């Protein structure tokens, strides 16, 4: 029995075995769909933000089903912050690279062939940068609020409200 199956059988953390098994199957599909929406954002509906939210929701689903340890193992706070900042930085750099063509955000790559992955020049690069940033930051917001909220609730339970100063 490998580690994942142990996790699935372990009912002390997260939700029931049924949920965990289904999440295990669905997870890959959601990630692939999210990546598709990010990568094909310039030729079909979607884009960096929409795809990033889908990717982040995959991680959030994992966290909800398996508990926060699993979520943190897949993407720790340090990694989330790193990806978040480098995504934003990459987006600004795509804009700055346009100065090579003389203008900020100039489309410095060729237009390519319509309806293909490598078309529309630098939009693909910006979409990937935004996708990475949104994935990391939405997941980080979720984790921070849920962990932080739990700490506060535990601290507040059973205590009298502070007297007014």
């Amino acid at each position, binding site marked *: 029995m490998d580690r994942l199956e142990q996790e699935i059988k372990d009912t002390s953390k997260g939700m029931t075995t049924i949920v965990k098994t289904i999440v295990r199957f669905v997870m890959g599909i959601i990630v692939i769909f999210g990546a598709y929406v990010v990568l094909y954002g310039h030729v079909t509906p979607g884009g960096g933000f929409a795809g990033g939210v889908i990717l982040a929701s995959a991680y959030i689903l994992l966290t909800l089903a398996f508990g926060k340890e699993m979520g943190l193992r897949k993407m720790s706070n340090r990694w989330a912050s*790193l990806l978040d900042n480098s995504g934003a930085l990459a987006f*600004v750099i795509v*804009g700055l690279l346009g100065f090579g063509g003389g203008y900020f955000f100039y489309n410095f790559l060729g237009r390519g062939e319509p309806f293909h992955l490598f078309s529309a020049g630098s939009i693909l690069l910006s979409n990937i940068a935004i996708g990475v940033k949104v994935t990391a930051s939405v997941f980080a917001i979720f984790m921070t609020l849920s962990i932080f909220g739990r700490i506060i609730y535990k601290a507040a339970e059973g205590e009298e409200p502070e007297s007014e100063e």
Partner: protein
Amino acid sequence: MQTYYPLFTAIPLAAAFLNLLLSKISMKVSDYIAFLVTGILAVMSVKMLFEAPFIYAVGNWRPPFGILLVSDGLSSLMLVVINVIGLLAVIFSFKYMATYTAKPKYFSLFMLMIAGMNGVVITGDMFNLYVFLEIASIASYALVGFGTGKKELEASFKYLILGGVASTAVLFGIAFLYSMTGTLNMPDLAQQLEVIGMTKTVGFVVALFIMGFGLKASAVPFHAWLPDAHPSAPAPISAMLSGVLIKALGIYTIMRIMFNIVGKNELISAIIMFLGALSMVIGGLLAIGQKDFKRMLAYSSISQMGYVLIAIGLALKPGAELVVATLALIGGLFHLVNHAVFKSLLFLASGAVEYRTGTRDLEKLGGLIKKMPVTGAATAIGSLSIAGIPPFNGFWSKLIIILALFRGGYWIYGTVGVVVGFITLIYFVMLQKEVLFGKLPESLSKVKEAPFTMVLPLVILAALCLAMGIGYMAIEGQLLDSAASALLDKMAYMNYLIGG
């Protein structure tokens, strides 16, 4: 410089994220990044003063389809104010923010705020303006609550709620404008509105904008957040908020939209003048009774912004002579720049006093001029300047505004301006008496002068107060003229669309 105009927002944005990445390796590095970035921006903005007006098409997309950046006299003036005060606030922060944790995050938020304000000032696109407005606002909400004490959190939440309502109003107005004209490009909007004329819908949009941007500028019926938010923020941020943010997000946007897009109008002029007079009187009266150093300064900000608003309102009057309108605008812009200088000086001084004594309560302070001579002298210069004592800069700008009001035939508003000048004098004399002179309390007998990085910005700002007062003609006459004429010449702004 023309090629690199967008760098005013790109550099601080990139630096904000780079700073967070690099600070994982070493905490020290964020100080240098912040100093370097704001230093480069300050130098660039001073260089911008010597450029002729131009437009910049982002990504080489032809306007009105692409995003347009506009540089003229007004935006150059605002860029200098934002970036120079920003540099001084960063220098002040080195020592001051050492008492807080998470200094890299502070500098990142600071740079996001600078990026937002620069963006608001350089853009020529309505929605872009909204986006940068939100970037600057969100960064400032977070910075107000940076201390995470009870008061800070409550002030930040209050500011956030009111700011959220203001942003909603602004977005609503933009949606109306778009549905009416089908364009978001500001010169293009100006042309379209010229054709449409002053319909009821345009009137509603103007009302929404006055509410939204007036809230950001804290004109009186919308001022409730300012006296809480400004004192709660760390001192350099108070200086940035009071000195720059309310001007870049509030006053500048009102000026740009009312003069260059909507055009002169009797009713708008009357409303803005009334709001200005109300802000002057109420802000001034409320400032008198305050016992908190920074709270008094915050109310005084409301009052001083009233002078700028009343000058804008006067210049917006369609029937006013060109001389009066120009005089009022020059006075208003001069007061805007002056207020940025002396109000940030006073807030930074309050920070230096708090850093050494640990209190902002006026009743617990006193006699500090003997213990902190340089800070004390700078505070004295700042408060004399804001109270309108002659050779300092505040005197001249108030004089010009009041003269313009009398020449325009507004005797009552002119008299109100004079009276509020006296009220300002009263509460700043009280402030000086409570903080600088009088008896030194026992508890403060061991106070030392503030550290060098805190004193340096104070000295520079105090020197600016004096220099701008004495050398008005030599230093800013030309700049203010070009800024005022950029506002008054709506035709020139509309011609930016065809690359003029």
